[in-house]
């Protein structure tokens, strides 16, 4: 972070953003403000986290790593719950889903000794797991909420034939999980052909052995697939009940209201 060259290159990269702003103005896309906020926030957040990681790596105490990851999970859950506005208990549902997804995938990587238990590995990989789980949780929550409204008739028709809440919502859950997982599955299928993932690109640019970069990238991809699946499925299973009463009735009021 202290390297003057790095700051200069970041500022030079900003000229590309200026191009984006110019296009936005020219085409009246009204994105200038959003772009400006994104640029400033990302700069401040990344700079801050860079110092935090630098400090935590220096402390050599895993407790601080765990605390940082817990903070990430809390912030991700808050963001995801915001996307799922209108769903009862959206925050605890997201927190359990993202927390379990992160803990289980990182736990497996550690238990199988695929990565060493150091801040240098845990923080960046944890960040990726939490970020991707958060996206999956948000997509799942929002989709279930919207579909329960849009497909009310189908759900009621199913309940009226003696289906349980779980049976009646199963097509909605299926669509929501597919919607949340398809982007990552497609990215995993096409990886290496269409694009080189960020972590691997970064390692190769940084001068690492391409084969070592590939090994880590494969670990990352499988880890993300696993954690995104866990997060989406948990969100689905934990949230669907909130749309029903224990007597298998949709909570959305009545047709007259």
């Amino acid at each position: 972070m202290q390297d003057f060259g790095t700051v200069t290159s970041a500022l030079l990269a900003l000229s590309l953003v200026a191009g984006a702003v110019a296009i936005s103005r020219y085409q009246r896309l009204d994105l200038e403000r959003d772009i400006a906020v994104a640029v400033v926030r990302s700069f401040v957040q990344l700079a801050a986290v860079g110092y935090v990681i630098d400090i935590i790596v220096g402390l050599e105490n895993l407790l601080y790593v765990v605390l940082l990851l817990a903070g990430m999970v809390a912030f991700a859950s808050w963001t995801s719950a915001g996307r799922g506005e209108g769903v009862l208990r959206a925050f605890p549902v997201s927190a359990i889903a993202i927390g379990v997804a992160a803990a289980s995938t990182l736990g497996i990587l550690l238990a199988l000794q695929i990565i060493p238990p150091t801040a240098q590995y845990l923080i960046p990989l944890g960040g990726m797991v939490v970020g991707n789980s958060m996206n999956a949780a948000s997509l799942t929550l929002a989709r279930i909420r919207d579909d329960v409204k849009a497909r009310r008739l189908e759900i009621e028709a199913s309940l009226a034939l003696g289906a349980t809440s779980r049976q009646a919502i199963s097509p909605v859950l299926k669509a929501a999980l597919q919607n949340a997982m398809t982007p990552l599955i497609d990215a995993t299928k096409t990886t290496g052909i269409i694009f080189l993932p960020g972590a691997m690109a970064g390692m190769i640019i940084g001068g690492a052995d391409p084969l070592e970069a590939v090994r880590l990238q494969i670990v990352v991809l499988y880890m993300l697939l696993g954690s995104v699946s866990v997060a989406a499925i948990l969100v689905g299973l934990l949230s669907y009940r909130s749309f029903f009463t224990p007597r298998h009735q949709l909570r959305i009021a009545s047709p007259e209201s």
Partner: protein
Amino acid sequence: MGPVKVRISDVCYAVEGVEILKGVSATVGEGEVFSIVGPSGAGKSTLLRTINRLVEPTSGEIFLDGAPTGEMNPLELRRRVGMVFQLPALFGETVADAVLYGLRLMNRSADTGPLLESVGLDAALAGRNPQSLSVGQQQRVAIARSLALEPEVLLMDEPTSALDLAARQRIEDLIGDLSTRLNLTIVLVSHVLDQVERIANRVLLLLEGRSEGAWSKEEFFSDKTGERARRFIAGEL
């Protein structure tokens, strides 16, 4: 009116502070076509849904054969009290899948031929994709799907509102036929008064969540029902 099949006793329903049903009572006789009418927003569909407990009354009770439905397993209740909606909402790749949906939830099955024929459809349609049928035919499939569970009562929520006139009349004929042939008790929500006049035995008028009373069809369409019912029939409410 025959023996009482369904008794609705002082049913209220409120949601988010809005009272939709304000103490409705009524009795439905076995084997009759009982019609619930009223202006839109009167609470007809909500009242219908309290009978199979898709909507839980805030207070009051509904009795089926004298037993309180609030104490029954709702899944078993809904197999005894079937329901047909405004739109068919069929599930599955084939008409047979759609008809057998409710049975398969219980890991049971049946021969689809007689079920399709009982609603006036050709048994050969079983292998077709339901979406390739007309809406009128799909609505018949939805009725066959309810009949597959051998219900004692069939709730129908504006079952012909999405249909053209010819299809509507065929469904009306079918409703009359099911009631006499199977001695099925039918509770029909409808806003089409000539439909009610054609097929209902008795009529309940609901205004703003309250029952104005229930009459035989003949009484209802005569002038003996009082001011409010007369104004409703005249289209003034």
